[in-house]
């Protein structure tokens, strides 16, 4: 038997270049949910607010099909579905203090805190071994200092079907509210 240590064959195998990441410097917001760090493109975030500051514009939405959405908020006459990022990623329950309001999507995301902004040079594709919902959640992985951080896909927070379900719940809530608005006080 021969001892195998630090086999040189990897160098040979590595001559197949690693999957080439998209080479474009990009500013990301690093945020935390349940002690897990994520990155999201700064361009994808329209506004960051504290949950306290949005309490007045939040509306509870009565539906159970999309458990990660309990509220909507209205900003600039547009209604956003508020996604609990912890529930979305299957993380332990936390007490979110911030809301990321996404650009060009009717989605706002509850998070624990912002870590900082960072500039990344590449987004590495998720290895093919990952075959679950994470392929929809993430654009890929990025190196930030000595960490590997998943780069969130903004469009992955709610699927089309979930939007349909939530829109129907919102419509139902409105139709229930309308007759009451027009009713004369007793």
């Amino acid at each position, binding site marked *: *038997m*021969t*001892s*195998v*240590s*630090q*086999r040189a*064959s*990897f*160098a040979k*195998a*590595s001559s197949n270049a*690693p*999957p080439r990441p998209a080479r474009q410097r990009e500013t990301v917001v690093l945020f935390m949910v349940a002690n*897990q760090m*994520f990155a999201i493109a700064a361009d994808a975030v329209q506004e960051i607010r504290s949950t306290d500051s949005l309490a007045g514009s939040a509306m509870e939405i009565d539906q159970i099909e999309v458990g990660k959405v309990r509220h909507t908020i209205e900003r600039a006459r547009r209604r956003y579905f508020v996604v609990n990022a912890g529930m979305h*990623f*299957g*993380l332990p329950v936390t007490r979110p203090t911030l809301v990321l309001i996404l650009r060009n999507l009717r989605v706002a995301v509850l998070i624990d805190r912002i870590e900082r902004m960072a500039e990344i040079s590449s987004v*590495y594709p998720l*290895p*093919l*071994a*990952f*075959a*679950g*919902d*994470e392929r929809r*959640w993430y654009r890929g*992985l990025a*190196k930030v200092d*000595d*960490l*590997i*951080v*998943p780069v969130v896909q903004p469009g992955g927070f709610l699927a089309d079907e979930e939007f349909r379900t939530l829109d129907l719940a919102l419509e139902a809530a409105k139709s229930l509210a309308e007759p009451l608005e027009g009713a004369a006080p007793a």
Partner: protein
Amino acid sequence: MTQASQSARPSFVIVQVGERRFALPAAIVAELAPPVRLHSFPHDTPGILGVIVRRGHIVPVYDAASALGVRPSSAQRFYLVTRRRVGTASEFGAIAVNGDCELAEGELQPAAADRPSCVAGTLQLGEEQLDVFDLDLLMASGSAAESSGSAEAHA
């Protein structure tokens, strides 16, 4: 094919996962990597612990201990990096091992029916009989092994 290659017996890398020794076909092994940081992040693919970075590659780390039904050991700080097929493509994948690896030659024998589904066969080394596992099968059996492992743990 040369005469030498015709007579060559298959080579296997013997590794220790948890408290047991297993074998993998040497042809798929790329490197025994030193202890490096395991990066984990939320995902819902069973049988993957996270990723490591090796020579510019982001390499997924498979939970071999669960799939093989053995208790993971704190000594498993090295990573055996292998190449595996994923559909029509191939990529590197790693398993955590304790760092003591050996190279051995032998004939692959059929696996007994009671072995985990990720075991492709057995290798007789002297008096020792080792399971030879297949990383592709290990990935496929990850979820089943996880559930049976947790059932054992609660028994």
